[in-house]
């Protein structure tokens, strides 16, 4: 009975979809299940996946951060620009993370102290951070990074894993740990369910939100650095439109857009589904745009299933 209940939960449904995708993919292409392909498909969108982790926190908190992809672009461009103007690599990396922190704090300031909706603030900064990135590199493409930096982004460092994938696993552990086993994680949920209630019960709502948005800025900046390392060069339009993929991953993972519910486990399942679907479609020669369409359909469909379920249950209740 208990197993059945688990299977009927959202994660159970996602797991089923995931198994289905894996089965179809493995059937269609021999290359799919190889370790190389697995790691390859992961590292090709590792930046989005990393940001999806912190995005899950923010959406559970009933806020949203649309500026992540622009922050990614900004930190990558800042790195290129700093190295290009003669700043040493370690210094430049540190500065980029500081830019991420400052950007996140900036978002957090308007959201918590000025009480503006995060949708508005981060929408403005989606334009703003992207603009700053363009200011730094204009319409050039900067390719100045030292060899070791590019190697770090492009070659495996531990066994078959590249650095970015390792960082992802590390962050995943931290995310699961914080969300499930710390007070802070519980605060994130409680604020997402009812912000006023959380405030009255003595939770420091402002501080939690500030921490989340600052973390979002820093992690986006980190993702930008990893992206720059993987591509080996930076351009003003790096990561353009990534925020939508990231939010899709999180919402498909069962995190409610109204906050208060969702789990990292669900997000991981949905990330795997999205990656496997895209990879499988690429292996069977389906173009990128059609892939995006399929993902869009999946998003709508996945949101419809719980409603269909409750509709079905209400029908049953009526007939009995």
């Amino acid at each position, binding site marked *: 009975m208990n197993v059945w209940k688990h299977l009927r939960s959202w994660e159970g449904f996602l797991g089923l979809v995931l198994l289905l995708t894996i089965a179809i993919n493995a059937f269609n292409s021999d290359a799919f299940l190889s370790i190389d392909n697995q790691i390859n498909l992961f590292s090709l969108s590792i930046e989005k996946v990393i940001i999806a982790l912190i995005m899950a926190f923010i959406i559970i908190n009933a806020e949203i951060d649309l500026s992540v992809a622009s922050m990614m672009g900004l930190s990558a461009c800042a790195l290129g620009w700093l190295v290009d103007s003669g700043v040493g690599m370690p210094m430049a990396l540190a500065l980029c993370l500081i830019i991420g922190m400052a950007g996140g704090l900036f978002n957090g300031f*308007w959201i918590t102290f*000025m009480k503006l909706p995060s949708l*508005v603030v981060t929408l403005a900064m989606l*334009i703003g951070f992207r603009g700053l990135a363009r200011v730094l590199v204009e319409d050039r493409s900067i390719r100045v990074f030292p060899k070791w930096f590019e190697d770090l982004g492009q070659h495996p460092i531990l066994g078959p894993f590249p650095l970015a994938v390792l960082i992802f696993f590390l962050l995943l552990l931290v995310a699961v740990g914080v969300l499930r086993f710390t007070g802070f994680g519980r605060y994130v949920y409680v604020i997402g369910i009812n912000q006023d209630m959380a405030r009255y019960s003595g939770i420091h709502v402002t501080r939690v939100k500030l921490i989340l948005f600052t973390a979002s800025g820093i992690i986006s900046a980190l993702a930008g650095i990893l992206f720059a390392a993987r591509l080996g060069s930076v351009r003003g339009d790096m990561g353009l439109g990534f925020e939508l993929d990231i*939010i899709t991953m999180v919402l498909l993972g069962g995190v409610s*857009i109204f906050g208060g519910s969702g789990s990292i486990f669900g997000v991981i399942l949905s990330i795997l589904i999205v990656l496997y679907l895209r990879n499988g479609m690429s292996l069977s020669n389906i173009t990128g745009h059609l892939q995006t369409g399929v993902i869009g359909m999946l998003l709508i469909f996945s*949101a*419809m299933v719980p*409603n269909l379920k409750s509709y079905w249950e209400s029908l049953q209740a009526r007939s009995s």
Partner: protein
Amino acid sequence: MNALQGLRPEKLRELVLLLLIVAVLVFFSSMIENYLNARLFNRVSASVALMAVLAIGQTMVVLTRNIDLSVGSIVGFTAYFVGQQLSQNNEMHPVLAIVMAVGVGALMGGINGVLVAYCRIPSIIVTLGTMALYRTLLVEYSDAQTVLTVNLPRWLLNLPSLNVFSIDRLHLRVMVLGMIAVVVLFQILLRYTSFGRKLYAIGSNPEAARMAGFANQRIVLSAFLLCGALAGLTGFMFLARFGNITVVAGIGFELKSVAAVVVGGVNIFGGSGSVVGAFLGAALIDLLENSLIRWLQISEFWRDALLGLLILTSVATDSVIMKRFQGYWARKQAQAVPETQER
């Protein structure tokens, strides 16, 4: 202060926006030589025409506590679809072309509406999905072809420069007049019809609206239909203005329209805002964009960075002023009530 008391918060918001627009005009005319001229009006009005129509559609949806992120893809698809039909069939009647654009847009908006209202999926998820879907539809349908200006009929290419009347070099274009007609029509629809008031009611409190017997689902669907139809109309205007349509047409319009609506004082959580506000928001943003490009001290790359900051500051000032004013308003009301009760 008496004059202020008669103002409703919405009206005040519109006034603040007008003042901001004047402030921007004054600021840039002191920065740029020969700034305030007919060309500025012509250029800004031509681009506001598109964005305002789109923003009004977005307003309908945002008023009901929803959001439509697929409008950019709808604009792109209708622009391409109608453009392609017109290139194949140059004899098509202009009215038919417009009806086709509005119809296709309404159909796409209707799909959003059904999914949101009847399948009860949050609008942000639905329209994120259909944004990708409609764009995919466009890419597949276009087969990597481009609509070219040379294949389009003459009347369409002349449309953007067609004037209703001109004062010296100040032109009032037909498309701008069309936009003004849409603003007036929808302002009336929202202010004076029961449908319009129901949009506000649903946005302020969906539960209460349902209890009061409103057909919430049908009204939300209508809002999405109207939004889609206006996005279709924007697609037609886009086609007329730019002529060459590729698969990337209209990308980013969804965020621009949301920005215009938000700057225009429409509450992102539904229930308050006005069409005139959305129009002024679109006008302010376009004016800033156009002016920043011409500001010689800064490179064009600074434009977006400053634009983001300006959207933020305008919304923040707006919210601070509104809070003060609402507090004042509430105190006035509270004072007024006991006086009448004493007798």
